[in-house]
């Protein structure tokens, strides 16, 4: 019961502090609108907000899908061909030294103002965490499993797909969780740099017109969307690895039956 109540109490507390600051500073509504005003705007502008939210969500989901797929394929190639990893790994690390945000204007130039450049941003921003997590997971297969597989006459292919890949799934799951939490950043940054739809565009536009209440409403929608995405991905990751929780909750090994 408390587990359900706690987030509600925290949310209510934060709203109260917000309202309190508004009262205390007597800030004008175009500097800091109160929570009630933001909620009112949220309801009034709901169709508009949903229209833009839909675009952003599509960008995030597409980016998440492409980034995860690319990351997984890269990690698999890196472990399959040892020579490849020697050449490609330094390139990957160097590529991370370039902030993705700095690439946004170039992507805009190349891919246009439509959804493609935002999807590319989201893909780029999650590609590295997913690749790194999968690669680490695939490399850290317990040697015992692999030795056993060899005595059982398993081919390299069978070892990869039936031993190393499932053993890497928990690590893949944490990569996915990181991806789900940073993908919205990629999409929104893309929208800020140049677009005509999406929550990022709406926020920038509202801000310029002093419609700070609308900006806050868009921010709220974005936050709810990001949270929803994170928890869905978390659920999927846990479904993918049902054995992980069992092992930690079961009796310690070595106990009598």
């Amino acid at each position, binding site marked *: 019961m408390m587990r359900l109540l706690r987030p509600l109490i925290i949310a209510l507390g934060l709203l109260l502090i917000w309202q309190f600051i508004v009262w205390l500073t007597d800030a004008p509504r175009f500097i800091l609108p109160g929570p009630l005003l933001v909620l009112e705007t949220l309801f009034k502008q709901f169709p508009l907000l949903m229209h833009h939210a839909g675009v952003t969500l599509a960008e995030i989901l597409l980016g998440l899908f492409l980034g995860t797929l690319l990351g997984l394929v890269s990690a698999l190639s890196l472990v399959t061909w040892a020579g490849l990893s020697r050449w490609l790994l330094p390139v990957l690390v160097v590529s991370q030294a370039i902030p993705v945000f700095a690439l946004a204007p170039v992507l805009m130039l190349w891919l246009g103002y439509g959804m493609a450049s935002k999807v590319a941003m989201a893909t780029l921003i999650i590609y590295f965490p997913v690749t790194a997590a999968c690669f680490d997971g695939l490399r850290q297969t317990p040697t015992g499993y692999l030795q056993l597989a060899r005595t059982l006459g398993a081919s390299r292919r069978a070892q990869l797909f039936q031993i190393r890949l499932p053993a890497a799934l928990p690590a893949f799951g944490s990569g996915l969780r990181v991806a789900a939490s940073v993908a919205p950043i990629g999409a929104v940054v893309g929208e800020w740099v140049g677009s005509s739809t999406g929550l990022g565009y709406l926020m920038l536009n509202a801000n310029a017109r002093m419609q700070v209440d609308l900006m806050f409403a868009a921010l709220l929608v974005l936050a709810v969307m990001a949270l929803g995405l994170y928890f869905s991905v978390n659920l999927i990751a846990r479904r993918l690895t049902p054995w992980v929780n069992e092992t930690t909750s079961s009796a310690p*090994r070595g106990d009598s*039956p």
Partner: protein
Amino acid sequence: MDIELRHASLHWQQHCVFDHLDLTLPGRQWTSILGQSGVGKSSLLQLLCGIADSAVIQGEIHCSDGLALHGRVAWMAQQDLLLPWLNLLDNVLLGARLQQGRRPTSEQRELAGYLLQQVGLGDRTTTRPGQLSGGQRQRVALARTLFQDQPLVCMDEPFSALDAINRLKLQDLAAELLADRTVLMITHDPLEALRLSDRILVLQGHPARLSEALEPEGVIPRAVDDAEVLQHQARLLRLLAGETV
């Protein structure tokens, strides 16, 4: 089938652990090698299983039927090495799953179920290993080893991670299920070797040498309070401990 290992040598960090070591495993007999940690007994076993690092250990293996030993050894390690994402039945079927690249046949599934029954876990086929205790997990590992049905079974301290009671129970079970098979067991526990083996060899010294085979009398598994077992145990313990003094 007899298996012979000749001129085995193990070098570890430019240091010779053993050299020109010969080992014969007579068919349908249980041979145990006793020795302290670091004497190279696990490497010797891994050489026979074909999973040793060839830069470290080398040797010639001959089988009495003239064929190569490679791919005909079932390995059971100290850790159960059960895959946590597979249920017990699929863990027993692992060899079939890895080799065929397709679903195991119904006969294979039946055999795996029967073997799980033999180790006392016939009603837990769909459980995942995470829910089992250490003793139960090692039973499943034993069933997986039996499922492979290879001419040679190599066991590397298979029961050393278990508590005393479970260890005795599992020794009895292994003796029953592995009767009449060619078995090589590595252990540091003289009692375990004496309960289960037809022949016991001690690996020790610098460089390490194999002792003359000790062949205890009596029906396997021998009782823990058997007079001969106790007498041999005392002697073997003195022999093993004598080296460190």
